[in-house]
């Protein structure tokens, strides 16, 4: 097994930020892959919560939707959705929330609602879902997004979910109780908020790319950390586990459904 894709490296980089026993509010797609990769490698007792109400779930294949039957079958328990948001997320019981979006700004604010004006959209996106309250209440959030100047923008078209708002202590003045974005995992490396300004700063690069490529992918003047970490490439075990998971998953999603007669 040689070589790896940027998608794989993003997933693996995100998985490495998790720790055993941490309680994750998992979104669909790459976050779900990252969380389950962590569970299948170095964080066997990670607790995965999907907003569908499945708590402590251990799926063998990745769900396509946030509420596939596999999640319920392997869960410690299944609770009504309102409880997930009130008792668990707002209740301060979630260590890590994963977020993605169509746009992010330099303070980690996210847009997943609309490109163009809300009332006359150029592109209508799916919308908020769980994001605004994951962003507010999870003790920390990890954002996972492929970078381009169209997605990493200096001004969002719409503020769906709060990062550090205008930066500095702006977030502390709100009723958000969670710590905000801890890291943004892109397809070139990792941005983390600077200590005082809270501006997203390049702190780690994937092993196969350059600062110049990172800067070209970001629509604002990207700040660099004093010490830039070069991330280790995927280990054979990480890669093998992730590929097997993806293989099981796409096989399962292709499987024909038997309806009752």
């Amino acid at each position, binding site marked *: 097994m040689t070589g790896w894709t940027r998608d794989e490296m993003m997933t693996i980089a995100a998985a490495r930020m998790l720790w055993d026993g941490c309680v994750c509010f998992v979104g669909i797609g790459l976050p779900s892959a990252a969380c389950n990769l962590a569970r299948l490698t170095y964080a066997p007792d990670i607790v995965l919560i999907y907003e569908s109400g499945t708590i402590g779930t251990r799926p063998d294949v990745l769900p396509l939707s946030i509420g596939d039957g596999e999640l319920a079958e392997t869960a410690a328990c299944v609770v009504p*959705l*309102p409880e997930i948001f009130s008792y668990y997320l707002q209740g301060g019981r979630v260590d890590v929330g994963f977020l993605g979006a169509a746009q992010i700004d330099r303070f980690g604010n996210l847009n997943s609602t609309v490109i163009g004006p809300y009332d006359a959209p150029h592109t209508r996106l799916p919308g908020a*879902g769980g994001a605004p309250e994951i962003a507010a209440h999870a003790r920390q959030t990890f954002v996972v997004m492929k970078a381009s100047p169209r997605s990493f923008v200096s001004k969002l078209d719409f*503020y769906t979910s709060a990062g550090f708002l205008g930066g500095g202590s702006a977030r502390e003045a709100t009723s958000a109780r969670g710590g905000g974005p801890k890291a943004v995992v892109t397809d070139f490396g990792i941005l983390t908020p600077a200590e005082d300004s809270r501006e997203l700063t390049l702190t780690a690069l994937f092993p196969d790319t350059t600062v110049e490529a990172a800067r070209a992918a970001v629509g604002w003047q990207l700040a660099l950390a004093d010490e830039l970490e070069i991330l280790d490439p995927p280990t054979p075990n990480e890669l093998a586990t992730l590929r097997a998971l993806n293989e099981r998953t796409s096989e399962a999603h292709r499987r024909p*459904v038997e309806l009752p007669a």
Partner: protein
Amino acid sequence: MEHLSLRQAVERFVPSGARVALEGFTHLIPFAAGHEIIRQQRRDLHLIRMTPDLIYDQMIGMGCAARLTFSWGGNPGVGSLHRLRDAVEHGWPRPLELDEHSHAGMAAAYCAGAARLPFGVLRGYVGADLVTVNPAIRSITCPYTGEELATVPAINPDVTILHAQRADRKGNVAIHGIVGAQREAALAATALVVTVEEIVDELPPAMNSVVLPHWLVSAVVHCPGGAYPSYAQGCYARDNSFYQQWDAIARDRASFTEWMERHVLARPDHKSFLASLGEAA
């Protein structure tokens, strides 16, 4: 509680202009009921669902809806709901008014509706522009701490339609698996229609499992496969492959319309809809 056919239930409980919630979070989405609403050409509906999913994409694309209350409008794990987008971006086949929330906000609104409170409270919408585009999202001051908290108005549908695994002859409905906001949507509604995979003489002892007692239920409809291409835990799996194929079908107005005519409008009922998919393969 009455046992009705799906046609009767939609005739009776879903007039044009009604506020209608077809709930079920990914699981147990009442597709058959949505298709029957399309067949009966209901118009000006105020559709309510946390995740519109394919069923509302279809109803919106067929012109049933004037307004949508929702909190996440994508095809899960696939991408856009193209019919929803076309209605919002281009007003096709007709403009769609949005009443847009976050999941937490909409869940609080359903809970308030079920409890017959006029509003729900949450720590939510922090720094979010939804507050500026949706005048229904307001705030309130805590009488103890002075904190400002977000409020949402209660959701009380005229009719909630659910799908479930089984009901007994009296109309007690048992749900197994992911429940989403089904119970809250049911309790918040004026009328409650439930399509079920199976009708049994008697349900097993429930204890703490999820049951909607018969006296909350307006009508039970026997409708096997009624959640397809969503799923019914223990009966059949989610057809993830269909969800993926829907992207191409719905992307284009003509292919969408053709698919709906062929598989829904030209079919008298859900059994025939399911059979038509087999023919297509």
